[in-house]
């Protein structure tokens, strides 16, 4: 009952703001270029109730989150300078830099890996990352980030109040998250430009907005030195159309119809070229393509410029 009331109140507000926008008041209020497209917004509003049903329509998103976390963990952990500030060569960790697992005997490569893992764990103990999750939705990624020991705090932002409501409710189920995670209904543009983060994530976001370039640029400006921006989106190609729209929405009904708009997909190459424009300060450090197969789940495909992909952009020191 109460939920219904909130819902109708919100609907009225939503129409009101639209009316304001149409009646030439936009000269005063600057149009929010990083905002989500209104029709997309209402689509996500409808998903709010089932967001955390891991067996329901969002299961595929929960599954995808596993791969995202693997990607994020790998990018951060494999780029730690393990031998930084160690002068004694005896104390330095031996990092072969070549594929030692395939060449050395198992016992030796196992020992080398053990040493690297140990040093990585120690180094991770020093990390206290501040994270911003843009387009956090119900908080699937935000919660996962917040539970990591290397993360100090996570701020999740989204433009749809209903999903933020869901995220806030779900957060209460885990006492671990209480001090580490916060949510806010706000657009990226309205975040204070002085707020800087070590990790910014924009997962499955660019394909739902009207001005992706603006958002990427805005997000990069909030990175701390050595910070990472993680993006995941979908290539504009036949394979993506076939898997995400034709099979995913219409044939197998894995995700609700209307989740994706083909025209908004961005090619991996285009995104990389865009970042390369700012290569004085930012660099694409890793990019991986992934695919989904029913019963198997998500996996990295290793085929570039095809289907879904993730990208890590690092700000230079």
């Amino acid at each position, binding site marked *: 009952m109460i939920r219904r009331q909130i819902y109708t109140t919100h609907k009225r507000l939503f129409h009101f703001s639209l009316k304001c926008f149409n009646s030439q008041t936009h000269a005063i209020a600057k149009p929010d270029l990083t905002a989500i497209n209104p029709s997309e917004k209402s689509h996500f509003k409808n998903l709010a109730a089932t967001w955390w049903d891991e067996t329901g329509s969002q299961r595929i998103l929960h599954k995808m989150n596993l791969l995202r976390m693997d990607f994020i963990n790998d990018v951060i952990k494999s780029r730690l300078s393990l031998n930084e500030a160690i002068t004694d060569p005896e104390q330095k960790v031996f990092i072969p830099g070549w594929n030692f697992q395939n060449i050395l005997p198992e016992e030796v490569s196992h020992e080398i890996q053990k040493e690297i893992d140990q040093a990585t764990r120690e180094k991770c103990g020093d990390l206290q990352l501040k994270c911003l999750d843009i387009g956090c939705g119900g908080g699937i990624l935000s919660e*996962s980030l917040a539970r990591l020991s290397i993360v100090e705090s996570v701020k999740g932002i989204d433009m749809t109040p209903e999903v933020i409501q869901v995220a806030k409710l779900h957060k209460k189920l885990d006492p671990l998250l209480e001090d580490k995670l916060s949510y806010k209904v706000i657009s990226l543009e309205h975040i204070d430009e002085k707020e800087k983060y070590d990790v910014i994530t924009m997962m499955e976001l660019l394909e739902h907005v009207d001005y992706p370039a603006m958002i990427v640029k805005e997000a990069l400006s909030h990175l701390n030195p050595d910070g990472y921006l993680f993006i995941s989106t979908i290539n504009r190609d036949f394979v993506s159309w076939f898997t995400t729209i034709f099979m995913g929405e219409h044939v197998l009904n894995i995700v609700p119809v209307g989740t994706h708009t083909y025209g908004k997909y961005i090619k991996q190459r285009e995104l990389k070229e865009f970042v390369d424009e700012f290569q004085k300060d930012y660099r694409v450090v890793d990019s991986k393509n992934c695919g989904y197969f029913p019963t198997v789940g998500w996996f990295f495909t290793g085929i570039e410029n095809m289907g879904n992909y993730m990208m890590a952009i690092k700000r230079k020191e």
Partner: protein
Amino acid sequence: MLSRRFFATAVKEVTHVSDVVIVGGGPAGLTMAAAIKSSHILKDLQCTLVESSDMCRSLQDYCDDPPERILNRCVSITPATVEHMKQLAAWKFVRPDRIQNYDYIRTYDGLTNASMDFDSPNLATMIENSNIQSSLYQRILELNSEQPLNQLVLKDNTKVTGITRDSKTNWPIVKLSNGDTIKTRLLIGCDGGRSPVRKFAGIESRGWAYNTWGIVGTLKYKNTGFRSPTGWQRFLPTGPLAQLPLPDSWLSIVWSVPPELAMILMSLSDKSFISILNAASRLSQDELNYLYKIARDEPEKLQDEVNWRLQVFNNKLTADQEEKYPLEVDYIVPKSRGRFPLKLSHADDYVDERIALVGDAAHTTHPLAGQGLNMGQADIQSLVKTLETARERGLDYGTKFALEPYFSTRYPANHVMLGVVDKIHKIYSAKFPPLVWARSLGVNVLNNLPLLKDLIVGQVSHRKMP
């Protein structure tokens, strides 16, 4: 005053909050605890183990001053299990003088004497349950001294009196007989075949009782020269009789028999029991049926009857043929005879929201292939790996979603093993002549196909983990 008291009880409702609660201090529960506390990724979790028996004292006693004779609760463990215990750094606490490696298993048919031999270096190891538990307990004490601020809490002499769920978060709340209540993110049931945790989760366990009892005991072979340690198994129509080697000519038996025969065997004197056991490892089924009748009606005549028949049988054996039977037993440790019911069961699911089942709580099997404890160890390896991955990915590792990979890895593997063991049991229980002939032919053929046999050996000793 009244309101204050009411408030006090309301606050007292949950006295502790834990990350993981393990119910059961058997080999599975202790391994689970040691594995969590040994893992770099999980060791900082707050972990509590609840056990109803006087576990800590009895395991410490075993460690300081073990009983003179080997205890009757023994298991056969595979090299994979030994390897796992080594990884957990618990194997160094095992008392090596009380375990026996063996390289040979000889199985033979009670009706046709068709036999199949398996050999492989360190095919399996016989060990007392207490030896496993004690080593794990010592390892846990060692881990606790390494992490004094976040020790594994061992609550023995404590029963679980009830389990409920928190109304807000849905986390399980475990009520204990000492008055404590623990709210936990993950509840792991290592609480055996009749698992209260499984019942709380409402997970159905399917299967059937074999209408069979397993009789166990610790015995000694007559000293008639050296033989390599060998596991013997005779498939009698009443159920398999397994004789498994322990150090210094000692042996442990698991004799599966129908309930009425179990009653007879349990009621015999130690001497008579030894006689009928020797008979059962050599004589024909017709003779055995006759001897069982004597054991029931005139037990005092049993020994003479068996001795005479065995003498006739043995006189016909050549030295080569003698090798095909286990040695004669001539001593049993008094009061070491025990029995337990055998059943096959498999839970429909091993996981639910904030619940995981491990070992016998998830599946029980016939002991004829010596797989029960080993399946539990493989469960633990898989569950720990699942928890590690979930934690690295920032998942709430108590959710069913995070625990699912454990179930999807272990269920099919366990199902196959349970099925195979069940089929072996069924095939060998048959007395229908064409079937008996077919199985003996099959066994004789199999015994001469080394490649296929190696494959079977690899499977039962878990040489390669999937």
